[in-house]
């Protein structure tokens, strides 16, 4: 909200330079900037609209912060006038005051009033409308004036709208109303949208001579909802949405009555005050010892009391009474804030907490994520972060947003691979080889933590590099008991303990490959435990087997046959070559290296030879394999 610093000076004396004032307000009240010449931009906090979104409120704070006196402001007294009749028929209205004025002369506003409005970013209209707008700035109470001669019947109603009712506003826009909304109405129908915007029908014109001036108070949630629903957030709507105090009505009407007389020649005859819901008095106990316990600040009782008094709080023994307009004050802690912000948070002591040490650590899932990241980065993979959102056509089944930003960000990602595949393409423009991973949540529909991997090498072999990385990753994590299963021609599932941990797949003729692994499941399966095995004392014996196999034979089958047929001392099996040749007639040549090692003796040529023979026989007997 914008405030003219010059005008503020009329409410409180002896103000410092504007820059200094902005600093003080920032440190003790709200973030404040100097914008333009003599104008302050003050960020009113949402809980302080009731008391501080006005010159009067800001002046009260400035006086307390700078220890200056607030100038007295004059208010006209309210008096009753029988001719004005108001009927409030809704709980959404806590108070409505309506006063009748005659002898009004509409004309231009004086210079100071025009300047006051302009510096707050409001356009001057005529002396009467300007007075109502200005008084809102001054006191925080929205006001609305009706041309009395245009009102039908003798009663002003405050009621819920009826289905099908419409209001055409001062800007000539028509709004369809719902029964959940509140209107001010006369015998003919709704005049305005209560607390939000005035209507055209009883608008003030140059011909206006008599007016009915209203100052109301409406419950915040009702106004907030209505303003959102019809998409009309006015200054008044914003104020009422913040649930301002009904006590402001007195000040608004009191100031307006004086200024209308002064600037529009209007005589206030008085009116009616329907005060249906008076806020209860708030008397709070001040716990002086707790104050120090909460803030770490030691203040004398008298100092605390002095700070509260500066802000207009009443004191009776240990009981503190909040001013009516301070709707934000509900509990003792609110009072603590009042004192401590006047002292200034910068001036609080800095103290190390005294606590019993407890072992601090990170959750297992975090440690797993750390380990994965470290491993993959050490393998030469780069980490990326993507949006949690994917385009609406990128997945058949996915959790949809009720209010997406755009169609391209309409679903929650059911897989990390959708965005990783895009990353591969994007990065291939700049890099020949791309190896990336992401750790993040996916939703399908349950929230799950996943690891996604994507590789593009620009040549064949991407899949097996990816598979090798996954295998090495599992080895480092201590996951031994897992297997791969071919799900489709392009996809390999990773399984462990009867669960599907994830999958690997290749793309674009094996020039790119992707994998996704469920980390919630992996977390349960990994065993950190590693144990030492004595270094080999005896030499290893190696034998190479050259095989010719038909395409239908899977390496995994060969491997499992070898393991079944082999003696205990078969230490390792490696595929060291895989090749194709015209003379093989469609078959593949595979060279497999068998590594034998016994922990307790040197193996003889003879026993290794026998073992290899047994393995060869098993392979030839069970699979379409020829030993070369």
């Amino acid at each position, binding site marked *: 909200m914008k405030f003219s610093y010059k005008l503020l000076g009329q409410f409180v004396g002896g103000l410092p330079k504007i820059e200094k004032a902005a600093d003080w307000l920032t440190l003790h009240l709200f973030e404040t900037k100097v914008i333009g010449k003599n104008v302050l931009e003050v960020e009113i906090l*949402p809980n302080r609209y009731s008391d501080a979104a006005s010159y009067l409120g800001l002046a009260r704070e400035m006086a307390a912060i700078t220890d200056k006196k607030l100038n007295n402001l004059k208010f006209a007294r309210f008096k009753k006038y029988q001719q004005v009749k108001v009927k409030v028929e809704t709980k959404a209205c806590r108070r409505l005051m309506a006063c009748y004025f005659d002898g009004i002369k509409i004309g231009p506003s004086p210079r100071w009033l025009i300047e006051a409005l302009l510096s707050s970013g409001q356009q001057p209209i005529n002396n009467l409308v300007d007075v109502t707008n200005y008084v809102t700035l001054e006191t925080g109470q929205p006001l609305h004036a009706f041309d009395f001669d245009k009102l039908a019947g003798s009663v002003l109603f405050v009621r819920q709208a009826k289905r099908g009712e419409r209001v055409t506003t001062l800007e000539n826009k028509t709004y369809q109303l719902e029964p959940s909304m509140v209107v001010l109405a006369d015998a003919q129908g709704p005049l305005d949208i209560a607390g939000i915007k005035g209507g055209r029908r009883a608008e003030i014109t140059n011909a206006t001579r008599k007016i009915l001036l209203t100052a109301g108070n409406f419950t915040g949630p009702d106004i907030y909802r209505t303003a959102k629903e019809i998409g009309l957030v006015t200054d008044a709507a914003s104020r009422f949405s913040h649930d301002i105090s009904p006590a402001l009505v007195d000040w608004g009407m009191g100031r307006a009555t004086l200024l209308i007389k002064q600037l529009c020649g209007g005589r206030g005859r008085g009116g009616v005050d329907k005060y249906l819901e008076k806020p209860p008095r708030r008397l709070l106990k001040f716990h002086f010892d707790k104050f120090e316990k909460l803030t770490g600040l030691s203040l004398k009782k008298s100092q605390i009391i002095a700070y509260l008094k500066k802000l207009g709080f009443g004191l009776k023994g240990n009981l503190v009474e909040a001013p009516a307009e301070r709707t934000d004050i509900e*509990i003792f802690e609110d009072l603590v804030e009042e004192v401590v912000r006047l002292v200034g948070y910068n001036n609080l002591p800095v103290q190390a907490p005294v606590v019993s040490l407890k072992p601090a650590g990170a959750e297992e899932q975090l440690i797993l994520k750390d380990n994965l990241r470290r491993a993959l980065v050490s393998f030469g993979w780069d*980490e990326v972060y993507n949006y*949690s959102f994917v385009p609406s056509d990128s997945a058949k089944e996915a959790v949809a*947003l*009720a209010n*997406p930003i755009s169609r391209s960000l309409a679903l929650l990602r059911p897989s990390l691979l959708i965005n990783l595949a895009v990353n591969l393409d994007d990065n291939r423009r700049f890099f020949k080889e791309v190896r*990336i991973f992401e750790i993040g949540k996916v939703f399908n529909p349950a929230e799950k933590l996943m690891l996604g991997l994507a590789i593009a090498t620009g040549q064949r072999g991407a899949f097996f590099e990816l598979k090798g990385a996954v295998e090495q990753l599992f080895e480092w994590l201590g996951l031994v008991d897992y297997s791969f299963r071919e799900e489709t021609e392009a996809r390999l599932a990773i399984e462990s303990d009867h669960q599907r941990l994830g999958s690997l797949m290749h793309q674009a003729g094996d020039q790119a490959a992707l994998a996704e692994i469920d980390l919630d499941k992996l977390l349960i399966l990994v065993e950190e435990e590693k144990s030492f095995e004595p270094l080999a004392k005896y030499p290893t014996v190696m034998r190479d087997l050259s095989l010719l196999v038909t395409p239908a034979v899977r390496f995994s089958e060969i491997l499992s046959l070898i393991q079944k047929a082999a003696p205990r001392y078969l230490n390792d099996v490696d595929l060291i070559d895989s090749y194709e040749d015209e003379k093989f007639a469609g078959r593949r040549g595979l060279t497999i290296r068998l590594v034998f090692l016994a922990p307790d003796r040197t193996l003889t040529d003879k026993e290794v030879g026998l073992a290899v023979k047994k393995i060869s026989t098993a392979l030839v007997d069970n699979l379409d394999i020829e030993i070369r």
Partner: protein
Amino acid sequence: MRKRAGQSIGEAKDAETLEKVRVKYLGRNGELTKILRSLASRPLRERREIGLAANKIKQELLQLFDQKLSQIKAVNFRPGAGLDLTLPGKKVRAGHFHPLTLVENRIREIFLGLNFSVVEGPEVETEHNNFEALNIPNDHPARDLWSTFYLKDQQPETGGRKPEAGERKLLRTHTSPMQIRYMLIHQPPFQIIVPGRVFRYEATDSSHEINFYQIEGLMVGQNISLANFKYVVSQFFNRFFGKPVPLRFRPSYFPFVEPGLEVDLRLGDQWLEIMGAGLVHPKVFEAVRYNHQQWQGFAFGLGTDRLAMLKYGIDDIRLFYSGDLRFVRQF
């Protein structure tokens, strides 16, 4: 023989010559090996006498070999001549952590050093945990501080039903709902931080994103005060930036703290908003059934992206979520 062998070892200039010497004396058919092997046919007394002497010599020679071999290796380690040492090094393929990972890790490390534990929570939250339990009422403009993505209600045919009040699902707008989740199942005293991804329904630009990261902090005990909060955050920022940094504490408003404040950091000639904080609101303690007469403490929220941008001089938050390796490989 001992003398000859010793001399040959001493004279050997390279590993190859040394190995020949070893084979000559200690190999399978070496001179010493032959002597030892021939003992089998000798009488027992002679066997013991010569055996002892021969074994002693064997040990001595082995030791000499080892010494000489180390010596030769050390000499050979000197750089050879004729190499253009100014040629570029061979490229090592190194991976890179995402800068947000690096910054989050550093933050965790500092807080772990301050005896804070690290926990995480879900990204899809209920309206209750994200707002109501944190004293942010429905239909109140305070909610506008957090523009929210809501999930579509599950359709009845897929087993969904219309959500009750507060059950509605949304993408958490801050890490603060973890205060609720954590306190519901833990008893004070404790101190934790909660790193995680959060979401805001807003237009993106160089300083706003629809998803970004926060670190929530929560410390609850019998005497945890604002002065303690100032100590913890000052320590944190000083460590994070590696030098004392000017901080400014000023009043603010978050419905789940009272008093509420904001922390600004001095950078160049301006103050930058870096953290929201305050003492945990008694209503939040009530929501998790803590006795607020007994327990008190502070909570704070820190923008990880903002800190990373400050640390590395990154001027556009959107780069973090671009998947662009030209960016990631700089870290």
